[in-house]
């Protein structure tokens, strides 16, 4: 009925429109807006098209003159790599045997499947750095998420350094930067897509870890794991609550206590530090929240945006801008989630992601690639580790809301992948998916009925979460397979596997109780980051997710142990005591072995490797307190957090998986083999520094040309 009325109205308006004499053909700004905008688009399109057509022969000629013979020696047209972080081989094999993963089973039958040797340690930034460089960590310099600062024993981010500008011009209360801030990648060696690019082969690299800051190469890249949020952290959520009982410190986030006054809450969004001010302080964005209980609606007004939200639902990405002064704007995107309004108001705000359409830091190569994706698929997460595991671990998010967040983030990555596959018909497409890692970290406890976390934390879900995750990934693989042709290679892989984490081992407490780490006089415990450690008496300390460092004279600022015999003796002692260490309460071996730095092959960055990497047994991992440098008298403790699965253990028991649509020539592939395989498939000589080897069976590749391809 309404449609009929609308049609009539339009018809009347059209009649009036055509009755008007020519002078009135112009119907004001509305038509002007449409006309100008459309004309501009057509104008730009026309000129770009013209430029493309005119420039194309010249570009082609330049390529020929430069001697680039891209794809001439290629054995395939395209290599697609789907990186499913942390997929566990035993689970894959179980679900395949049960017939729950038809696409992966098909991939295995028509190509190959094998367990994939990971790196030491088996941690994502390390493993993915080896994936892209084909080198072990001693050549790419990433040994953990964190590296230690030898001057003050504090942790630094291992993958990138974000500094401040070196020169400023003082102007009143401001200091105007005269140089760019230093943003430096610390991962060394060369990603295989750079080598391919030098030969004219195009790659699209999506969210692969340790690609921040992005490097120049022939292709497109959007940074992944370790790309920071707007605060420069690896992801700091905000939690707003009227409940005074919940205002204690939470890991991974900040708590903002709020007061409700006649259903209105006046608060703020905590932004980055305003480095334009001489006296630096946090930027804050005022925010008003209206709670309408009758309509079960929450209205959030911030940065000129009005967001209506129902409790228990996430907002879309909201674009906000901070104004540090001097007319500058720093833009971010974020999502809101109101978990409850009664009896207390509680709201979660995601970490402030760098706005991909107006990035405050470089997050893509070329710069416009992040803008392009933002325009094409809408705002998307740019934070390296977007699945906010800390928010669930600290019980700020429920299990369901965490899963929703993970799947939303995953959808964005999927959209990027399929767009890249559509555009990259020749070359490499590689995309990393975090969801497999995040969900397993947080829900692995459901696979162990006796897990301590099931007795204390949230237990809304069941083992189905993990199973569904695997079947969803199988579905993704199926959709990717449909896009492949016979001259393409599909690789589905994980960087490491996953195992149960039910007991934490406080390495620093053990070192303290065994006389290797000393506290300041009168102290029996130390707070975070070795606050009360007496370095002048300490011989060894643990930092990061698996490293033991000797407090070495000449290296550490307050080094105690002399290089040579003393060092050797100490290492032998530690190795003997820790290898095979038992957890008496559980009657299990907690540490299988220590991996000694002296036993790894030489490499330019070997000296940055921890002196030992601890190879924990299944069920064990370094404890939460030990990671953050806390020392006390508890060595073993139950892990009662939702974060209940892990891989920072003995690498030999957490291999990843490798599916290849073509036959491989080995039963023991390694993650360092992927890069040389890519180079070999595109007919490029494998550089001598690469540790891995090409693993695609070339004879099978030739015969494959006459057989059905996986997409059929």
């Amino acid at each position, binding site marked *: 009925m309404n449609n009929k009325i609308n049609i009539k109205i339009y018809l009347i308006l059209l009649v009036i429109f055509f009755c008007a004499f020519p002078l009135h053909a112009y119907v*004001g*700004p509305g038509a002007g807006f449409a006309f100008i905008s459309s004309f501009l688009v057509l104008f730009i399109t026309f000129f770009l098209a013209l430029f493309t057509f005119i420039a194309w022969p010249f570009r082609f000629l330049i390529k020929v003159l430069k001697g680039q013979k891209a794809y001439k020696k290629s054995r395939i047209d395209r290599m697609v790599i789907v990186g499913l972080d942390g997929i566990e081989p035993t689970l894959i094999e179980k679900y395949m045997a049960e017939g729950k993963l038809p696409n992966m089973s098909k991939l295995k039958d028509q190509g190959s499947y094998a367990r994939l040797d990971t790196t030491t340690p088996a941690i994502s930034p390390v493993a993915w750095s080896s994936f892209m460089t084909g080198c072990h960590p001693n050549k790419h310099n990433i040994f953990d998420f964190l590296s230690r600062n030898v001057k003050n024993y504090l942790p630094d981010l291992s993958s990138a350094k974000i500094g401040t500008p070196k020169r400023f011009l003082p102007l009143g209360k401001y200091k105007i930067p005269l140089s760019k801030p230093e943003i430096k990648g610390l991962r060394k060696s060369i990603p295989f897509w750079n080598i391919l690019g030098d030969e004219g082969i195009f790659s699209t690299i999506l969210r692969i870890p340790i690609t921040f800051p992005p490097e120049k190469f022939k292709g497109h890249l959007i940074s992944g794991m370790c790309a920071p949020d707007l605060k420069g952290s690896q992801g700091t959520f905000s939690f707003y609550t009227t409940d005074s009982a919940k205002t204690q410190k939470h890991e991974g986030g900040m708590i903002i206590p709020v007061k409700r006054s006649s259903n209105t809450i006046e608060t703020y969004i905590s932004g980055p530090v305003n480095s334009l001010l001489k006296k630096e302080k946090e930027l804050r964005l005022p925010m008003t929240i209206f709670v309408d209980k009758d309509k079960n609606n929450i209205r959030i007004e911030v940065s000129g945006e009005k967001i209506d939200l129902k409790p228990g639902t996430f907002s879309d990405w909201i674009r906000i801008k901070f104004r540090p002064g001097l007319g500058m704007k720093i833009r971010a995107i974020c999502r809101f989630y109101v978990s409850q309004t009664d009896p207390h108001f509680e709201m979660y705000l995601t970490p402030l992601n760098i706005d991909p359409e107006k990035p405050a830091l470089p997050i893509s190569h070329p710069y416009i690639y992040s803008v392009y994706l933002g325009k094409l698929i809408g705002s998307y997460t740019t934070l390296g580790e977007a699945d906010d595991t800390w928010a669930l671990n600290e019980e700020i998010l429920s299990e369901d809301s965490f899963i929703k967040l993970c799947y939303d983030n995953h959808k964005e990555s999927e959209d990027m992948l399929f767009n890249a596959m559509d555009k990259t018909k020749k070359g490499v497409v590689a995309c990393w998916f975090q969801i497999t890692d995040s969900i397993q970290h947080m829900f692995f406890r459901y696979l162990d009925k006796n897990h301590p976390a099931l007795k204390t934390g949230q237990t809304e879900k069941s083992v189905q979460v993990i199973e569904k995750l695997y079947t969803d990934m199988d579905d993704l693989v199926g959709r990717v397979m449909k896009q492949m042709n016979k001259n393409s290679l599909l690789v589905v892989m994980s960087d490491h596997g996953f195992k149960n984490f039910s007991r934490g081992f406080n390495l620093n407490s053990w070192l303290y109780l065994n006389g290797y780490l000393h506290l300041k006089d009168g102290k029996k415990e130390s707070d975070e980051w070795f606050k009360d450690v007496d370095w002048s008496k300490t011989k060894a300390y643990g930092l990061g997710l698996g490293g033991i460092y000797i407090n070495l004279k000449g290296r550490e600022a307050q080094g105690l142990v002399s290089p040579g015999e003393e060092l050797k003796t100490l290492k032998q002692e530690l190795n003997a005591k820790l290898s095979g260490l038992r957890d008496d309460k559980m009657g299990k071996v907690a540490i299988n072995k220590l991996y000694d730095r002296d036993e790894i092959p030489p490499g330019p960055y070997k000296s940055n490797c921890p002196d030992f990497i601890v190879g924990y047994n299944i069920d064990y991992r370094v404890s939460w307190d030990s990671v953050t440098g806390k020392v006390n008298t508890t060595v073993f403790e139950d892990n009662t957090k939702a974060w209940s699965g892990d891989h920072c253990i003995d690498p030999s028991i957490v291999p990843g998986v490798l599916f290849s649509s073509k036959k491989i020539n080995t039963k023991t592939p390694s993650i360092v083999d992927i890069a040389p395989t890519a180079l070999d498939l595109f007919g490029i000589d494998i550089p001598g520094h690469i540790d891995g080897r090409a693993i695609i069976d070339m004879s099978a590749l030739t015969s494959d040309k006459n057989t059905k391809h996986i997409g059929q």
Partner: protein
Amino acid sequence: MSIINIFFGKLVEWILFPFRGMSPWVGMIVLSLVTGIFMLLVFRLTSNQKGIKSIKNKIKAHILELRLFQDNLKISLSSQGKILKCNLKYISCTMKPMLIMIIPLILILIQMNLWFGYKSFSPDQTAILKVKLKDNYNPVETDIILIPSSSAIIVETLPLRIEEEKEIDWRFSVKENGVHHFDLKIGGWTITKTVDATTSHLRKISTIKVRKNTLDQLFNPGEAPLLKDSPIKSIELTYPNESMNLFGWHIHWIIVYFALSVIFGFAFKGLFGVEI
């Protein structure tokens, strides 16, 4: 019709009132600004803002695609196709607000034409007065007398009667500045037509007087209409066309209005949060 004309006539008059003694550019800028902002708000209320934003983003994405995949002719061609497709979608998204804006905009433009469309007569200028009769009147046989209000306007010719057109014309000349009028006596009726020979910068000039309650009245609202049973259909004076002078360049006022209203629209879209 009269009520609509009175409303829009007063509205434009009220807006322009403070600027009567100034250059027409001032009035034009103010009217463009006011109507530009008004239409911006109408556009926001009547258009699918989310849809427009989404389509514009897609267009921008495909334009960036041309840059990102410049080596790939196939993608470039496909992107250009997608841009054109999105452009059509964009135009279709603007149709609804455009159609809704037509009525008030046409009425305002009609009023603006009275203010900016014509020049008043200057001394010694000659012009034609055209009288159109109803179909049942024969111009050759109809008695009609044209009486100038003063010696400031002189009728220079006898009436020219054009039977096929049902029209009677006189040539006259203006001798002095001021507001004058002609009285037309026909079949017991006396009808007045104003002759504008003023010197003010911005003034309302009505070229034609038409009958009441017709569509013509809607498009010619400058003067009180002729009564319906009057023997005359319309009385028209051939005023010279006015143009906007921009550094010696004479531009039709509607072009100026087009440019200014669009500029103001784009300039204020951010302030009013309108996606156009």
